[in-house]
């Protein structure tokens, strides 16, 4: 806009009276404003067309949600809730209306939750182990050759575009049902994303410490071990914990395609329309993720404190 104002007064300003200059300026300004408004209008029209196309294609208006859609959602939500009875809330499993009746298979669910956590931990550890050497190759200041840097970076980007669930779906076809396809799918995703994050931590590291070690006769490995690792380890540990949180949620969801863990029970409950069971399992998952978030946040804050103190 300012560019057009500059170009708007071709005649020598000195020969013009003050009124003329003001008049020129005002005319130019209203023209620029009009142009800006027109541009905005075009933008709004384009966005509206795009969005109405999207609404149409996703069936937002055309879908038949049945008579009284709100009523049906309310009905569905009511079926999610268990029918608890206050007088025998703490009775045993056989009594309808007790908490134990609602959580009727708690032992199995806790076992599956433990499996979910183990899938997430094993995948995170393996991913971090694989990502560490790759991150040296993918860091601009450490890579042995630009071609290697480029290849590792692009590969990790490519892998990151593939959702875990789709990878798991293909792996279930190869490995069969069970936790192993889940572990491998999550390991793959974790390696790709941690490679990028670790590489960025490496690039932010202070290279002077490595140079000091080099000048004192340290070899490549010693430079990395004593010059780089102490600088980046707290950041890397913090990223790995963050990834662990993500992986627990992902591992819970992976079970839905048959890749082990608590998700198997979720999809079973839906298939058998046991909506109160679904809600019970969901509560367990959300509770687990909540507790894990708090724990890992506390650990991460301590790690970050260590990093700042160092």
């Amino acid at each position, binding site marked *: 806009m300012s560019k057009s104002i500059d170009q708007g007064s071709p005649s020598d300003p000195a020969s013009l009276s003050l009124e003329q200059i003001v008049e020129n300026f005002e005319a130019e300004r209203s023209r620029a404003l009009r142009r800006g408004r027109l541009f905005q209008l075009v933008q709004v029209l384009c966005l509206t067309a795009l969005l109405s196309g999207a609404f149409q294609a996703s069936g937002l208006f055309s879908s038949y949600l049945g008579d009284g859609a709100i009523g049906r959602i309310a009905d569905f939500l009511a079926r999610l809730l268990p029918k608890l009875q206050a007088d025998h809330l703490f009775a045993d499993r056989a009594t309808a209306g007790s908490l134990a009746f609602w959580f009727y298979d708690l032992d199995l669910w806790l076992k599956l939750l433990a*499996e979910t956590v183990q899938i997430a931990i094993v995948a995170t550890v393996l991913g971090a182990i694989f990502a560490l050497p790759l991150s040296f190759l993918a860091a601009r200041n450490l890579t042995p050759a630009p071609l290697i840097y480029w290849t590792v970076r692009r590969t990790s980007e490519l892998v990151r575009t593939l959702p875990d669930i789709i990878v798991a779906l293909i792996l279930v076809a190869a490995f069969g049902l069970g936790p192993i396809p889940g572990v491998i799918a999550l390991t793959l995703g974790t390696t790709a994303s941690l490679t990028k994050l670790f590489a960025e931590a490496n690039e932010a590291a202070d290279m002077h410490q490595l140079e000091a070690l080099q000048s004192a006769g340290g070899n490549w490995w010693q430079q990395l071990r004593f010059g780089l690792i102490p600088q980046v380890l707290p950041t890397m540990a913090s990223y790995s914990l963050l990834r662990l949180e993500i992986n627990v949620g992902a591992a819970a969801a992976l079970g839905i395609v048959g890749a082990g863990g608590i998700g198997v029970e979720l999809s079973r409950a839906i298939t058998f329309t046991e909506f109160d069971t679904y809600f019970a399992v969901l509560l367990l*998952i959300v509770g687990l993720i909540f507790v894990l978030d708090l724990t890992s946040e506390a650990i991460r804050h301590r790690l970050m404190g260590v990093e700042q103190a160092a």
Partner: protein
Amino acid sequence: MTARSDLIEQASLIAPNSVHQPLMSRIGRWGLGFGAVLLFGWMCHNLELRVDVLVRGFTKLGTLTKAMFPPFANGAELKILQALLVTLAMAMTGTIMGIVVALPLGSVGAKNLIRNPILHFAVRRTLDFLRGVPVLVWALIMISAFGLGPIAGVIALALADFPHLAKQFAEALENSDPRPSQAILASGGNRLEAMRLGLLPQVVPVMASQSLYTLESNFRHAAILGVVGAGGIGFELEERIRIFAFDQVAWIVVAYVASVTLLDWISSQLRSRLI
């Protein structure tokens, strides 16, 4: 050699722990490491992560991968591209619905707009709880409520997005500078003008950028929602994995990766213009 041992002696006088660590701390460290390795091994054992299972699986995966080449759409190119467009439409509609719900909630959750601490706490904690529910879990609920089709996926995406967006919107509002609004109020503007001219220019670009980011992640999520029956590209993919048509699977994956890359590029261009 003497110079070197002298140096070590000197160093141990200044900082004894750096040269010779106390035995107990060394044992503790090795013990911790050993324990961690043991724990990891135990977990691998529980998950039946054994070498023979892996070898068998990867051999089979090799056969499947061989079947993927060359990628072949079997005449379904148009259908697949249409499914990709439906997935994109689901992502956009879900994002818009998420924004519509998140805007008022984010404003309530921002400390500088609503000063009621009880309301503030309640909103924040509820959002924290809802953030723990994975999008696939919402999708399963919505499919049993609305039946198979994209609309269930759209609602699931919106439900999974709005807690994240509301939190980010609240943070954007809290991080805004109060002084432009104060200046407008001081020069005689009313509260509406202070919001329109003092607050919105600061927060709208941040919110728009976060919404674009949500759109990107929704495109990925919308693809996986198809796997459980919410329409779009995931549905086509799941169908073909079921019948082991891996050349078609490969074609879909390539088309999908290309469109994700394209969308991410467009979105990052827009975002870099916004901020």
